[in-house]
């Protein structure tokens, strides 16, 4: 049974099904023809087909038994390099189950690894290069250390062009018997920023809201994607009501389970989009951005996310108490 979430249901299975990133896909097809490939590093913004390309490559390379020949790891889930190393070690030790003499190890979100962890990974890559090939996937290539970059063929994935995203959305809508309007598609594209995953998720949730996916249902869906607490928290802070701002923050963190970085990113989005901070001048907006950025930095460096976010909320309150 196929997964009924459209992002997964309509994920291309083979390189032949991939319409975007044409040059990259062509090179990958050559690897499949040669039955050989170097270590690969896929870099690019979210929702541009990096993971899909890796899975398609595995599929085309190994055929039906592809699942038995790949190890999928996610650097942000597998805490610590030791776990990654031992899993890779265990996996790479056994003999491949196909005519291809190596197995594939896909390491997603590799840019979330610390420098030390990447150093250790580099040694692991060398150690098992005879029996395993690595595909590292990252949003930012610069966060991958040089020695790893130099061992990999680097492929840079580009944000998908507007026509392609709209075409894909239309294709899915047709298959799912969903009516979409032009302004609906426009609205989805505007918010997706070239991220096809986000676009498809928006399409599916908008289709749950109304019979027709139009600008109206799309904005309704988008309005609900950000938890209401985020805006309420900001509004409370702006009014100087720090106790209720803190309550909202805690509900986001301990009930929704968001991390400090997740919350700070949501606040950032509100500052930039101007949905929460209407009626402020550009200088104030820039001041807020600086505060949010500083909080983000301190969360990454610090120990207790809640303390950092409470400090940010208090500073936001201060900015607005001076204005009035």
């Amino acid at each position, binding site marked *: *049974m*196929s*997964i*009924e*979430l459209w*992002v*997964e249901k309509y994920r291309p299975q083979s390189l032949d099904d991939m319409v975007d990133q044409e040059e990259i896909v062509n090179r990958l097809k050559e690897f499949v023809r040669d039955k050989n490939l170097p270590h690969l590093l896929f870099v690019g913004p979210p929702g541009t087909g990096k*993971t899909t390309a890796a*899975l398609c490559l595995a599929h085309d390379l190994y055929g039906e038994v592809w699942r038995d020949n790949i190890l*999928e790891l*996610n*650097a*942000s*889930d597998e805490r610590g390099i030791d776990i990654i190393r031992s899993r890779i070690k265990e996996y790479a030790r056994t003999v491949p189950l196909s005519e291809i003499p190596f197995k594939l190890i896909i390491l*997603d*979100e590799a840019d979330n690894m610390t420098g030390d962890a990447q150093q250790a990974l580099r040694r692991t890559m060398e150690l098992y290069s005879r029996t395993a090939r690595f595909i590292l996937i990252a949003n930012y290539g610069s966060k991958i250390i040089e020695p790893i970059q130099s061992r990999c063929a680097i492929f840079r994935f580009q944000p998908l062009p507007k026509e392609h995203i709209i075409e894909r959305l239309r294709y899915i809508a047709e298959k799912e018997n969903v009516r979409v309007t032009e302004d609906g598609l426009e609205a989805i594209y505007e918010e997706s920023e070239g991220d096809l*995953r*986000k676009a498809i*998720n*928006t399409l*599916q*949730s908008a289709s*749950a*809201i109304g019979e027709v996916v139009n600008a109206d249902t799309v904005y309704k*869906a988008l309005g*609900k*994607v*950000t*938890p209401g607490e985020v805006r309420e928290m900001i509004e409370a802070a702006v009014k*100087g009501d*720090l*106790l209720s701002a*803190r309550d909202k923050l*805690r509900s986001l963190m*301990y*009930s*929704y*389970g*968001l*991390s400090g970085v*997740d919350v700070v990113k949501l606040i950032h989005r509100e500052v930039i989009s101007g949905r929460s901070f209407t009626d402020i001048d550009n200088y104030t907006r820039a001041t807020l951005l600086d505060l949010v950025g500083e909080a983000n930095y*301190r969360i990454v*460096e*610090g*120990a*207790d996310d*809640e*303390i*950092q976010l*409470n*400090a940010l909320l*208090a*500073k936001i*309150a*201060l900015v607005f*108490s001076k204005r009035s």
Partner: protein
Amino acid sequence: MSTRIIPWVEKYRPKRIDEVIGNPEAKKAFVAWLNKWMRGTPSKKALLMYGPPGIGKTSLVYAAAAQYDLELIEANASDVRTSQAIRRRIFRAVTETSLFGKRGKIILLDEVDGISPKEDRGGLQTILELIRISRFPVVLTANDPWDPKLRPLRDQCQLVEFRKIGKRDIIKVLQNICKNEKIECSYQVLSAIADNVRGDLRAAINDLQIISTGKLSISLEDLDILGYRAKQLNMFEVVRQVLTARRPETARMVLSMPSLDYEMLMLWLNENIIYQYWPSIIAIADAYDMLSRADVYLGRIKRKQYWSLLPYVLELMTVGVSSARERPPFKFVKYKFPEKLRMLSRSRNKRERMNSIIRSISKNLHMSSRKILTEVIPYLKIIGDENPSMLRKILKSMNISERSFREIFLTNA
């Protein structure tokens, strides 16, 4: 007074199930499970009692063994996995009938969460095997059952939660003991003991025994010998001293306390800055900024073991916090316990279930748990609100129970 040598926790251990104090629902669940055993083998052969220490988990098993006329085989969880000989003894015990003319046996493995995954490799496997071959009820206890390493065990066990004992119940037990031991003791004293142990009945009985040793009547002053009691009281005072200090030296003085738990103090300050400095937004923002800087140094210490940074943490959270500008004049504030700790322990169960759903989704979608939470769950929530049948279809295709999903993500706590 030789009777006093027997620990009162033993002397007053309940002999019957209905004498066990508190946790009526847990008791009911346990008895129901045991009754199933009396009629055959229940679907879950083992039962995992979990909850904080000193609230009657082991006592309940003892009382049940006596009342049901069962031979109690007690093994510390570490016995099971240490020497082969001990292992064999216990494995034999769980498969052979009782030698003492009892009606059966009950196996008790205490503190299974103490197993270390590194040193006791195979320890969990042994316990799982023991459950598999046992012909008798197996009871396990743990303080923290949500430890990921215990997952395989959780699947095999019926889980029963035990909670802290209420203050009133604790006082009642202490009153009874006092009556029995002919000790004069005011309600105030017993209430102070009960406050201090925070729901741990065993600790309360032990404390009572310690302070009444060699005495026929006890007063509030006698409580002073319970050294740790001071710690809890002090946290309020420490917070007050920092937040209301007039001069940096005063705030700094708390650092000379030998047992200052500075991470705990940070949480207390995080909780109480707003109450103390309200309504001065400047003071609140300044104080939080200093606390946040202290936390940054703490993060560096934790990540890189830069212990030489510790003085900055300590000074910023005391001298730094108290130096906030435009502090309002002194007022007496009743400080609050850090809500963060309360919320984390309350939502623990929920978070564990949430993570397990997210992991299942993650396996299906080739995305990390983090991304599932921030980039998939919000859309699923919308779909769930607007179009339940679509959500049902999606969840079914990923083999996820719709009911748990709704409970975790679609009801507002």
